[in-house]
């Protein structure tokens, strides 16, 4: 294995946790306790477990929003706080709900997908505008484009944020409970779309879900967590 690039033969490790411990500031007990996990390029990994198992902490440590105190975390072979790595990811946080007075339209929120790439005083490129349109159509939120984001329902807000993730065309998607506010029909639609994205475009997907009633078809493995540790890994479908 090439430690610099995290490659093993032709397979590239895009997310690497080696004996990782994470503790929230001021807390006595760590939330992640010696987690070791390797996610390969093109994998669709579902992380599950009860409340407080450390699923969200795992995601947030993986993208550098939380600092780990022990162990090694690499995102695309780089430190998880590296801008270069972060430009290639899409992130959907858990339980996102904005107050009704947020002064943004749904489309403006999706357009923010490209803010990290923009130079001072520059406008969105025609390609970026097209990517925004396409992502909103794909998720089915185009009719909400000029509505106030804060006044949308929790499910609609979640869909708009999902469109923002897709507009970036990320190499890795970190999705924290993406189905939590969606109705059954929307769950199935998103599930199918994620499977398509994984299979046809080779996107790596790391998805947290405590509810296993909707497992996307393309899901390759389920990682079970409990008390900050990985307690089991199994295949998503079949025996």
């Amino acid at each position, binding site marked *: 294995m090439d430690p610099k690039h995290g490659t093993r033969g032709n397979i590239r490790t895009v997310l690497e946790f080696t004996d990782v411990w994470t503790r929230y500031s001021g807390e006595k007990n760590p939330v992640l306790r010696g987690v070791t996990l390797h996610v390969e390029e093109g994998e669709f990994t579902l992380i599950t477990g009860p409340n407080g198992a450390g699923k969200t902490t795992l995601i947030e440590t993986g993208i550098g929003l939380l600092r780990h105190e022990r162990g090694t975390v690499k995102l695309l072979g780089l430190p998880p706080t590296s801008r270069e790595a972060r430009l290639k*990811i899409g992130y959907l946080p858990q339980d996102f709900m904005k107050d009704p007075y947020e002064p943004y339209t749904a489309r403006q929120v999706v357009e*923010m*997908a490209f803010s*990290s790439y923009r130079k001072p005083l520059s406008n969105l490129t025609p390609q970026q505008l097209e990517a925004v349109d396409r992502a909103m159509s794909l998720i089915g939120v185009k009719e909400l484009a000029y509505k106030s984001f804060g006044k949308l329902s929790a499910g609609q807000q979640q869909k708009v944020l999902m469109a923002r993730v897709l507009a970036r065309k990320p190499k890795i998607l970190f999705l924290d409970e993406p189905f939590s506010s969606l109705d059954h029909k929307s769950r199935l639609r998103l599930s199918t779309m994620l499977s398509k994205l994984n299979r046809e475009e080779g996107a790596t997907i790391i998805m947290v879900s405590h509810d296993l009633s909707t497992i996307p078809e393309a899901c390759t493995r389920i990682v079970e967590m409990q008390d900050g540790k990985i307690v089991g890994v199994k295949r998503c479908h079949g025996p």
Partner: protein
Amino acid sequence: MPWTLIVYAYVASALAGILCGSTGVLASKLGLRTVAFSMSHAAMAGAAIGLYAGLNPEAVAFILAAATAVALGPLAEHTRIHSELVSMALFSGYTAMAFIFTYLSPGTALSTRTLSLVFWGSVLAVTPGYIILLLTSIVSIALLLLSFWPQLSTIFFDRKIAEAEGINTKAYIYMATIISGITVIMVLKLVGGFLVFSLLYTPAAASTKIGRTLRGMIASSALLGLLSGMLGVTLSLVADLPVGACISLSSTVILLITILKEAR
């Protein structure tokens, strides 16, 4: 009062209103509301230290407030305490220092012109040089906002997502902290340390009832700040009252009007 001084007072209060109104939205959206407290009280403590030590009070006030603006972000980062809490702790410490050094200062410290300027503000402090400084601050801040608008509005929306998507949120928060610091320092002479935050946040609060977009909120907050400044100076001149208190009172009345208008 000479008419030139009256004109200067109106121009300066209008500019201070624009500066505070727009910065207030920026600071409140980024969770930097208490920064103004620590900065203005740093200036008051600085003025008191200056008087006590026989140094130039205005210079010490400026240095301490500027140092607070620059140090606040890294201090919060290093101590892992939220910047709002660090700011409030500094605010309390600076208030105590302002009182102690004023008390210890020789002679009639409270009646000195400099201390009253920093504490209460005065139209007498307005000079053409001060107006040019205010104007330069407005233009510089407007240029910064325009240049980094996509990144800033993304952070306003959600800092966590912005950071995950590769925006250096810390750098922008530090920049906003320094902008807020500059604004407070610039406006201090006119409005005074006790009331500068009312001109920062009251127009910003009123703008949430008017602006439908973020740009609209900043523009309306700047406009309401300008109105507060002009009305405040008028009230101050007519009733012979302290200008800082009059500007603050005007901004509160404007906020009440916007709330009542929305309620109808």
